[in-house]
């Protein structure tokens, strides 16, 4: 639907007034180099307003409310990331401007060189890989059965799955550590596995159900009707229809499990067996001067995340977005 002229003029007016207000705050209130950040935002908004007025009475299918919304979305998403970068490149006391003044790459080097954080990264990766592998092995058949087979109490099982997905993990952290102490299994690197599984298994099942639901099962029926063997069924149906989605699920589960703070902080045997988020939590609590390394580690953490997001954007958006029917 093409927006009306009135709607476009309202959007253009709103963008212009908003830009004018931002410019005023930037000039009159904000000190230092950050003033230019405010002015840049203001200029973009005011240009949107001007273009909106110019194009209001044309046949172009552009909505200036949508343009304004996307601009605000970009500002609110990107500026905090810029602040994280500023903190990461300003060792010592927290910086007082959002725009980085003197960029220092030392904290990044410190994260990669520090034995503690490097070991934490490896521990996180090992625990998350083990939890993801176990979770996927259990979740894939379970989700297949929930979607395609007759399972007694199916809805109740699914409800339990959903409850576990949003359950506060911290409530089970203390009792799990006591339970592990009871049986003498505390104090090992894999002590975090039970809680990590509690993150990984419900998430893997939930996302796998979405993959299974979206699969073209009529193709499997057709392959079967053509007399395909089990192996041929796997090769011609499961591999192309399910494997890519399940691979992305495994990637998401791995990253979410590795990024969980509670399991690592509550159940790690000692500093050498802490996961990355647990080490960062400890670093941030004990030494405020180490915040730049915490931010730097956070930005480095985003590298594998971005790789996954850029490799399979459509599948990830589908997995996360289609969580309802």
């Amino acid at each position: 639907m093409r927006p009306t002229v009135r709607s476009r003029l309202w959007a253009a007016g709103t963008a212009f007034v908003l830009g004018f207000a931002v410019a005023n705050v930037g000039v009159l209130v904000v000190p230092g180099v950050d003033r230019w950040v405010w002015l840049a935002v203001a200029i973009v908004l005011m240009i949107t307003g001007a273009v909106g007025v110019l194009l209001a009475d044309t046949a172009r299918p552009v909505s200036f409310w949508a343009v304004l919304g996307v601009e605000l979305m970009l500002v609110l998403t990107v500026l905090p990331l810029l602040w994280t970068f500023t903190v990461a490149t300003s060792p010592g006391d927290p910086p007082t401007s959002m725009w980085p003044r003197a960029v220092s790459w030392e904290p990044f080097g410190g994260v990669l060189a520090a034995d503690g954080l490097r070991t934490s990264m490896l521990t996180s990766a090992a625990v998350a890989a083990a939890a993801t592998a176990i979770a996927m092995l259990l979740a894939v058949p379970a989700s297949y059965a929930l979607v395609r087979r007759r399972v007694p109490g199916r809805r109740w099982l699914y409800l339990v799955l959903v409850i576990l997905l949003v359950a506060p993990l911290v409530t089970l952290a203390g009792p799990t550590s006591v339970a592990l102490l009871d049986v003498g299994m505390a104090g090992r690197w894999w002590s975090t596995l039970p809680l990590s599984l509690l993150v990984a298994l419900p998430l893997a099942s939930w996302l796998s159900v979405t993959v299974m639901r979206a699969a073209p099962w009529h193709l499997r029926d057709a392959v079967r009707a053509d007399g395909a063997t089990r192996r041929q069924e796997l090769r011609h149906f499961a591999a192309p229809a399910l494997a890519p989605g399940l691979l992305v699920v495994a990637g998401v589960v791995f990253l979410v499990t590795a990024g969980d703070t509670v399991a690592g902080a509550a159940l790690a045997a000692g500093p050498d067996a802490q996961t990355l988020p647990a080490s960062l939590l400890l670093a941030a609590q004990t030494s405020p001067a180490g915040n730049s390394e915490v931010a730097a580690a956070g930005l480095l953490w985003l590298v594998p995340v971005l790789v996954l997001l850029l490799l399979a954007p459509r599948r990830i958006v589908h997995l996360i977005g289609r969580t309802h029917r």
Partner: protein
Amino acid sequence: MRAPAPTRPQWPRRPVDPNRGGLPWVLPAVLVVLGVVGWPLVVAVRESLFQSSLVVPDDRTFVGIETVASVFSSSTWWSAVAVTLALVVVAVALQLVLAAAFATALRRLTHGTRWLQVLLLVPFATLAVVTAVTWRDGLTAGFAPAWFGYDVDSRSASMAAVVAAEVWRGTGITTVILLAGLARVPSSLREAAVADGATAWQRVWRVTRPAAAPAIAVAVVYRSLDALRALEAPLMADAAAPRTVSTLVWDTTFETFEVGLGAALSLGLLLLAVLVGVALAVTSRMRRTL
């Protein structure tokens, strides 16, 4: 020539259900979940009946439900519940408003929607502890006090940092969920509403909202329970900031090592999560059919 043997009458066979026998596929996952959830739950109930501390392991006294009762009669608990619920309401309301605006904007775009959605997921993928630290620094000692010149030690700045961290982290994923919900609204329905002379508000309230209701319900329930269990941002907040239930559980269990009290608080938080979850799921008519 022998006569053919008389054939036994056969009952008509029931057609074999190709989808039968799903239980063995689900059972391993159920058993593992029972192990990793059931076992700690039993331990939590057991420990809540004792007064015990990891600092003095031998000092363990059976007190029955006294600890649980003391939790529910303590003002610290109810104050933490109030703070937690306030955080949930404010954070989720802000997330929903922003996400609805962003999703509506993205719905109108013809190019680049997928890449913008990927960008929106970056805050959610950022480590929660990093988000908590950077927002705390930004609002209590960094750019915000420098811009607006307020008192860096203020309690409200600490609380604002907790809310901001939670909102920034959750708005992107809420947008993606709501955008998928908006995609369910058939354009023919919106065009019919325009042809019928419906105002913009009527189109939003009577056409878009009902059609996108399942997505809105999922977003509300998921984000509320995620805010309820948020630990990193409240834990990173200034010591003067009021404690949430999650931080109360954490401090009791892992800072002062009072296992019995920690277990009782854990059970209380679980109960709170169940109550909030059920209330929201029922009122928002959440459903996700298999």
